[in-house]
Structure formats: structure tokens, C-alpha cells
């Protein structure tokens, strides 16, 4: 018993095999200290739901908190636990994503045609390694559509072993310092990847270690490409992959993850696209995986539910599937998370108050509607323009909805507004990652288009609120960095004031019609005004006759217009040189100034004369 405990605690990679063999029904034990406490009695752990369901619940939900955290590296950490997946019915722990990792082609949620396509490709390559066929397959698709799972499943179906390129562990800075002091050269991840590819191209996979395995076919899987930054490294990777496509003899699959288009400003996204084109041009086959359909996700989820014996209703599964956006990994994780907590909540309401539930059903569903996306869904982001559109269009409920909460708080009639037909503005701002300054600028630029024809009072209210926001933003301008906290508060307050001011001020919103949202002209104005200013500051010295510091505003307000008058022949452009010549010609009685190109020098001389 004691020995078992030890093994459970040591759940590092190296111990995986032992662990999965000895304690097959327990798997996930990452929060180490906690697991020690709660599992001091391993016998009890087998029947947790019966004995102490309360403590069990709390423990599990805290586990669930960790799940998110470990999502990224669960591949590495939980590799060894796959064996435990056989225990479907019992309430074993561990990520369901791994537990229900598809092992056969039937289990894949990926569309049949796509699977078939990939399978055929592999069969062709494995049967006859003819040189004329390109040996590289590129699979694209967004995250969690089962790219890697497909490969693994097909490979095991065909009896081939998968050889994966796994990124070496990154070297942290201290380690690097240590290494370099001991004389070990640093090789970048990209270097290592290049070496790897080189080896593969020249010698094939090095299988000298196990001779028997060499008989079975091997498939190479390149899942994560090295991180790129900069053009040079991108070029190197491109060349390297290009060579790989042209000359490898092992069936190779390269997985490229499409990032959603909303992040298209991201550099890597564009890089990957380019990379994909390059690979295709080199002769690689390409299969694009679509997001998994709702039905497929639902099927998988309900299968898992059956196996886990958890009672999620069809609607809930439906909702999770919908919200996951075609990402099955996300969907399964959500389901697991959902099944942890609600055991108490939802099933209770199901069991005890069946009647009330049915009565409140519409309510329940609607509450789930806005509850779920936050808890289970993928992160929802709004584009800035979407958010601005919401604010500017200012959609509100119709009159009758008002009647309900009229008794709450007596307001003057002119201050009353219909309830908003959207989330709280702050929430939308948060989703759009709106910064106060650009938000205010955009609103300022566009809001007048959305006001009704003769609502000048509204225009005033809006303008005034935007002014408030501007003041809030600039309150701490130029202050030291230590006021960061205060500054953040101010920023969000300013954004809130700007948005709510626009919503409130626009008391008679137009019926929505199409408006283009313009980029703030103000930015352009500021730039050109700055440029003009710099030019004038420079010109202040070599332009006007005598070097002197005149106030800047004086230059713009008095000298410039006068020069325009004096040099009427010149259209607009205030070339000082020309202006000066002109005014010299007009001042005949004044000695011919020597207007060389070096104006400052000549004016210097002049001063002495005067």
C-alpha cells in the first residue's frame, strides 16, 4: 500500500510506465501534495461517490481547475496513462481527452472521406516506395479537429509505427549561461530541427536499436515546427522543409494548424500560410481538415457520457458541441468539466424537482445560454469594429419591455432609456480588448452619423461625454510609472464613460442601416499638424530675416498668413526661399539682400549691418 502511494506521487515522465502498470485505475495525480492527502487510503478511492461525495466533489473541482492549466502539456505528462482507458465505466480520473483518444478508425470524429483520403495515401506510400510519388502529406486544419489523432489511428490500423519529431525542451537562460560557461555550444531549436531533417533525408530513420521493428513500416510525423521569429529563420525553415519534401523516402506528415482569421495580424499565421504554399509547390499533397461537425461531436460526447455514466442531457451536450466551434478537444474537456460540478447542481434539479424543472425549462436554457459560453466555450473575442458597431447602432429593446422595471427607481422622463439589447458595455469592451484612447477616437469620428437628423441635444450630450473620457484618459499623463494601477483604473473608466456616454447620449437612435465605420481622421490630422509644426520650427531660423525665437503660435497665427499675403504669386506652398525673394522684390528701398542658398549665413551678416 505504501509503495503504491510513492509511485502515485512520482508522476513525472520517467515513471509513467510503472505508474500505469501498478495503479491502473488511478492516473491523474498532478497536484501532488493534495493527492497525498486525499489518497492516503487507496481502498477508499475506489468508491468515492458512495462514501464521501462532498469531499470528493471539492477535490475534483479543484482538480478541474488544474485541468485548464495543464491542458498544454498533457500530451507529455499523461502519455503513460493511456492504458487506463480501458476502465470505461469506473470513475477514473485523468483527462477524458486522453482517455478517449480515438484508437480505431471508427472512433474518429473526423469526416469519413478525409480519413479515407489520408488512409489511401498512406497505403500507397507504404506498399510501394516509388520515387516519383511525393512522400510528404500536409494536413491543415484549426486546432482540435483531430489531425494528430487521425495519423495515429491510421498508422496503428495499418500496423505502422509513428516516429515523431518532438521539440527538444527549451533551454532557459540560466541553463544557457551555465552551459556556455562549461563550453557547451548552444544550438537553437531550428538548428536541431535542421539536423533532424538532414538525418532523415540522408539515412532514413535510424532503427538500429531494434531490428525487429525495422520490418514494420514507419511513418514520420512532424507536429510542431520550431518557433520562428524573423525572416531569416523563416527562410531557413522553408528551405529545410522544401528539401525534405523533395527527397525524403519515408512517408512524412506535416501538421499545420490554421489559426483563426481574427488573429491574422499575427505574424506566424501568415508565415504558416506561406509555408504551406511552399510545401505544396514542392509537390506535397495537402489535405485540409474542416472543423468537426456538430453531429460528430455530439455523437462522440454522448458515447463518452454513456461510458462515464454521467447524465448530461441531450440539450447540454448539444450546447457544448455548439459552443466548442468544431474543436473536439475543447468539447471533451468542457464535457468533463461540466460533468464534475453539475453532479450536484443539475442532476439534483433533475431528480428532485422534475416538475419545476419542466416548468422553468425555457428560463433554464436561456440562463445556460449566457452562462455556458463563458465557462465552457472557447474564448470569445470580438473584433473592435464589431464592438463599435454595437455601441454606435445602439440597439434597444422595444417599449413594452420597459414596463417591468419602471417601479425600481424613479427617473425623470428625459433621462429614461430603453434597456440595452446587448451585454454590458464593459463586457463587450473587454471582449474586444478595447483601449480607451482608440475607442474614444473611433466613437468620436463616427458617432455623428448615427444621430438622428435634428437631435443636436444628443450630439451635445455625446460630445460632452467624450470630452469627459478624454479628460479621464489624460489625467495621469506624464506621471511616473508607479501610478500604473491608478492609470489602469482610469483607462477603463474612461472607456466606460465614452461608451456609455455614446449609448446614453444617443437618445433617438436611427433605425439601423448600413454605415461604414471610418478610421478616425483625427489621427491623420494630428500627424500632419505635427509635421507642419516641425517644419515651421525649423523654418523659424532660416526663414525670416533675423534669427529670433518667436513664439510658435505667433509664427502660425501672424507670420504665416502675412507671408501668404506677401507672396501671393505662390500658390499655397510656403517655400520660404521664394517668399523671401518675393518680399525683397517688394521692398525696393531695401538693399539687395544677398539671398544665397545659405540663408542663415547671409542673415547673420545682415544683422551686423543693421
Amino acid at each position, binding site marked *: 500500500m505504501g509503495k503504491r502511494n510513492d509511485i502515485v506521487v512520482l508522476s513525472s515522465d520517467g515513471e509513467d510506465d510503472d505508474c500505469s502498470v501498478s495503479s491502473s485505475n488511478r492516473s491523474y495525480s498532478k497536484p501532488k501534495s493534495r493527492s497525498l492527502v486525499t489518497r492516503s487510503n487507496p481502498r477508499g478511492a475506489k468508491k468515492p461517490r458512495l462514501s464521501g461525495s462532498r469531499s470528493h466533489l471539492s477535490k475534483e473541482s479543484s482538480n478541474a481547475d488544474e485541468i485548464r492549466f495543464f491542458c498544454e502539456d498533457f500530451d507529455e505528462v499523461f502519455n503513460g496513462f493511456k492504458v487506463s482507458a480501458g476502465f470505461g465505466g469506473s470513475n477514473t480520473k485523468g483527462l477524458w481527452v486522453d482517455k478517449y483518444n480515438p484508437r480505431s478508425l471508427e472512433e474518429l470524429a473526423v469526416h469519413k472521406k478525409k480519413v479515407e483520403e489520408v488512409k489511401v495515401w498512406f497505403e500507397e506510400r507504404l506498399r510501394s516506395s516509388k520515387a516519383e510519388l511525393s512522400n510528404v502529406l500536409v494536413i491543415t486544419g484549426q486546432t482540435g479537429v483531430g489531425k494528430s489523432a487521425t495519423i495515429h489511428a491510421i498508422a496503428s490500423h495499418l500496423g505502422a509505427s509513428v516516429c515523431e519529431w518532438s521539440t527538444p525542451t527549451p533551454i532557459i537562460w540560466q541553463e544557457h549561461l551555465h552551459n556556455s560557461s562549461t563550453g557547451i555550444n548552444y544550438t537553437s531549436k531550428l538548428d536541431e530541427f535542421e539536423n533532424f531533417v538532414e538525418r532523415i533525408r540522408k539515412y532514413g530513420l535510424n532503427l538500429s536499436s531494434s531490428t525487429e521493428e525495422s520490418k514494420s513500416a514507419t511513418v514520420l510525423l512532424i507536429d510542431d515546427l520550431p518557433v520562428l521569429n524573423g525572416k531569416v529563420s523563416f527562410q531557413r525553415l522553408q528551405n529545410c522543409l522544401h528539401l525534405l519534401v523533395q527527397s525524403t523516402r519515408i512517408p512524412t506528415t506535416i501538421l499545420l494548424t490554421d489559426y483563426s482569421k481574427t488573429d491574422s495580424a499575427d505574424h506566424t499565421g501568415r508565415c504558416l500560410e506561406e509555408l504551406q504554399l511552399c510545401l505544396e509547390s514542392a509537390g506535397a499533397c495537402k489535405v485540409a481538415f474542416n472543423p468537426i461537425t456538430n453531429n460528430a461531436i455530439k455523437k462522440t460526447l454522448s458515447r463518452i457520457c454513456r461510458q462515464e455514466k454521467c447524465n448530461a442531457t441531450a440539450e447540454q451536450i448539444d450546447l457544448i458541441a455548439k459552443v466548442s466551434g468544431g474543436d473536439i478537444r475543447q468539447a471533451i474537456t468542457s464535457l468533463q468539466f461540466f460533468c464534475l460540478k453539475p453532479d450536484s447542481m443539475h442532476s439534483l434539479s433533475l431528480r428532485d424537482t422534475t416538475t419545476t424543472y419542466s416548468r422553468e425549462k425555457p428560463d433554464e436554457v436561456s440562463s445556460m445560454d449566457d452562462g455556458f459560453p463563458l465557462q465552457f466555450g472557447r474564448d470569445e473575442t470580438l473584433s473592435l469594429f464589431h464592438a463599435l458597431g454595437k455601441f454606435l447602432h445602439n440597439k434597444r429593446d422595444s417599449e413594452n419591455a420597459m414596463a417591468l422595471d419602471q417601479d425600481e427607481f424613479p427617473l425623470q422622463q428625459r433621462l429614461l432609456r430603453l434597456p440595452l439589447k446587448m451585454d454590458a458595455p464593459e463586457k463587450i469592451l473587454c471582449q474586444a480588448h478595447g483601449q480607451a484612447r482608440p475607442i474614444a477616437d473611433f466613437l468620436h469620428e463616427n458617432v455623428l452619423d448615427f444621430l438622428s437628423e435634428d437631435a443636436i441635444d444628443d450630439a451635445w450630450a455625446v460630445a460632452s461625454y467624450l470630452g469627459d473620457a478624454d479628460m479621464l484618459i489624460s489625467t495621469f499623463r506624464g506621471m511616473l510609472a508607479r501610478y500604473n494601477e491608478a492609470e489602469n483604473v482610469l483607462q477603463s473608466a474612461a472607456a466606460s464613460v465614452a461608451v456609455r456616454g455614446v449609448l446614453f447620449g444617443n437618445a433617438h437612435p436611427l433605425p439601423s442601416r448600413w454605415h461604414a465605420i471610418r478610421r478616425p481622421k483625427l489621427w491623420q490630422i494630428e500627424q500632419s499638424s505635427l509635421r507642419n509644426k516641425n517644419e515651421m520650427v525649423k523654418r523659424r531660423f532660416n526663414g525670416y530675416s533675423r534669427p529670433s525665437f518667436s513664439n510658435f503660435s505667433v509664427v502660425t497665427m501672424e507670420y504665416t498668413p502675412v507671408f501668404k499675403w*506677401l507672396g501671393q504669386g505662390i500658390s499655397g506652398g510656403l517655400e520660404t526661399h521664394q517668399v523671401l525673394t518675393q518680399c525683397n522684390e517688394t521692398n525696393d528701398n531695401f538693399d539687395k539682400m544677398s539671398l544665397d542658398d545659405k540663408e542663415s549665413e547671409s542673415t547673420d551678416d545682415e544683422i551686423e549691418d543693421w
Partner: protein
Amino acid sequence: MLWVDKYRPKTLDHVMVHQDIAQNLKKLVTEQDCPHLLFYGPPGSGKKTLIMALIRQMFGPSAEKVKVENKTWKVDAGSRTLDIELTTLSSTNHVELSPSDAGFQDRYVVQEIIKEIAKNRPIDTKGKRGFKVLVLNEVDKLSREAQHSLRRTMEKYSAYCRLILCCNSSSKVTEAIRSRCLNVRINAPTDEEIVKVLEFIGNKEGLQLPSGFAARIADKSNRSLRRAILSFETCRVQQYPLTSKQVIPPMDWEEYIAEIASDVMKEQSPKRLFQVRGKLYELLINCIPPEIILKRLLYELLKKLDAELKHEVCHWAAYYEHRMCLGQKAIFHIEAFVAKFMSIYKSFLIATFG
């Protein structure tokens, strides 16, 4: 060379407008050591002229040999070094600069650059170290921090150099600085004084001034001597034998603001507000200071307004001017003022004419 520069008095004795102040200053420098000075007054009143003449009085004609220098200063600001580009105007005995040109880095200018300049003192003929004069323009535009460090600089280097500060409004200069200086207020010249100067220039140029012409220019000039002389010269260029009925060309931006004002009076709607915004942008592009725009706009609006509204409109103008100073983007506040005016005016129109 413009007449403004050509007829700028070179010595304190030749000053025509503020003769009493000039005489006092002359006494001050000839009889005893001169303290730090702070000149303040509205634009076009002759502050700069007096300062230049004063420096000439101190150091003789050599002070007029100035050279323009555009130099990049390296300032060590704690963790990093800043490059500040600044233009200075200097002779052997004085340096003139506008610290506010450096924008938000002005305090480094005040601390470091002035320190450096103050250290390089000239040696006079007797081998004694003379003192240097630093002329700082637009002190009222300096940030609070910069003014604070300026105070320290003044104390520390008062043995080596004298500061002459120049600004429009002394209320934006901190108490600490004001108390360390001899404050000299330069009033705007009266219309009669302006007329006198213009007649003097006309004489020198050999022009025939029709009667009342100079008075009209003076009237239009807003009591700014510089502006009067500039528009005098413009008139001369436009049409020579000057006639008394000749139009005095207004400043283009003022005309533009008048146009905005009549726009606002004609129609009050968000659409019009949007057009007005476009025109305001035009002004801002040409670097007309927003405070001036607001002030001028109010002036133009008041001209056409019913007496009963004037009070309220003035109140709002002041309100938004204040907020403009606190805020960053002037256009927000000017526009808010225009919107408020439209709103007031519209309800007035409805109340009066139904």
C-alpha cells in the same frame, strides 16, 4: 527683411513704446548687478525687443552677433541616455532657447542643458569671469516638473549666470520661480502708441499715410504691435498709394473661424456639426492653437448673438476651455462647445419664432 525686424529698436534708448520700463532696466544694469528677470505680457507687446535691447545694453554690440545652432544633446536620465535635439541662439555672452520645444522632455533640458551652458562662462578682458545670460522662451509652456527643476537651477547657478524668462501669462509660472525673479510686466501698447509707431515707420519708408489709416490698422490689430506692423506692410504690398478706404487684409484663419461661426448660426444639426469638425481640423492642421480657436469662435459668435444668450454661451465657452486644458484632444472639447451652442441657439430660436 520684414518691417517688424527692420524697425525693431536695437537699444533701450530707442524704444518707443515702453520707454519708462526701458529706462528702469537701463538703470538696473548700469548701476548694479541685475537679478533674474521674468518678462510677461500679451503677444506683440515688445517683450523680446526689450530683452534683446537689454542684453545689448549689458554686453555691447557683440551681443548682436548671434549664431543659430542646432545641436543634439545627450542627457543621462538614470537608466538610459536621451538624445534631445534643440536649437539655440547664442552669442559669446548669452544663449537663448525654448525649452518647451523638447516637449515632454523639457525638464531634462532645464536640468542638464542649462547646467552645461551655465558652466561655460566667458572670460572678459580683465581676466575676470563674466556672467552669462540665459534667455528662456515660453516658460509658461513648461511642465510642472520642469519648472520645479528650473527653480533649483536658478539657485545653484545664480553666481554664474542670469536667467531672463519670457512668457505670456505669469499665472502659469509657479510661485517659486516668480518670487526668485524681478517680474516685469509688459502691457500691450495702446492704440495711440501703435499709431505713433506706424507713422514713424511710414515716415522712414517715405510713404504717404492717409489720415485715419494708421488708426484703422491699430484698431484691427488687437493691440499687438507686431501684428499692426505686419498688416501695415501687407497693405503696402497690396496697393501702393495707400487710400484711407483700403481693406486691411484679415488673417486667413480669422476669416475661416468667422465662416465657421456663420455656419453654426445658419443650421444646427449633427450633420452641420460634422462639417464644422472638418473645418476645425483644417485649422488644427495649420497649427492654430486650439485655445485661440475657441476664443476667436466665441468672439465671432457673440457678435451675432442676442444679448440674452451671451452670458450662457460665455459660460460654456469657459467651461470647455478649461476642460480642453485638462484633456489631450482639443477637438473633442471644441466640438462639444459647438454642439452646446447649437443646442442653446436652436432652443432659443424655437422659443422665439416657434
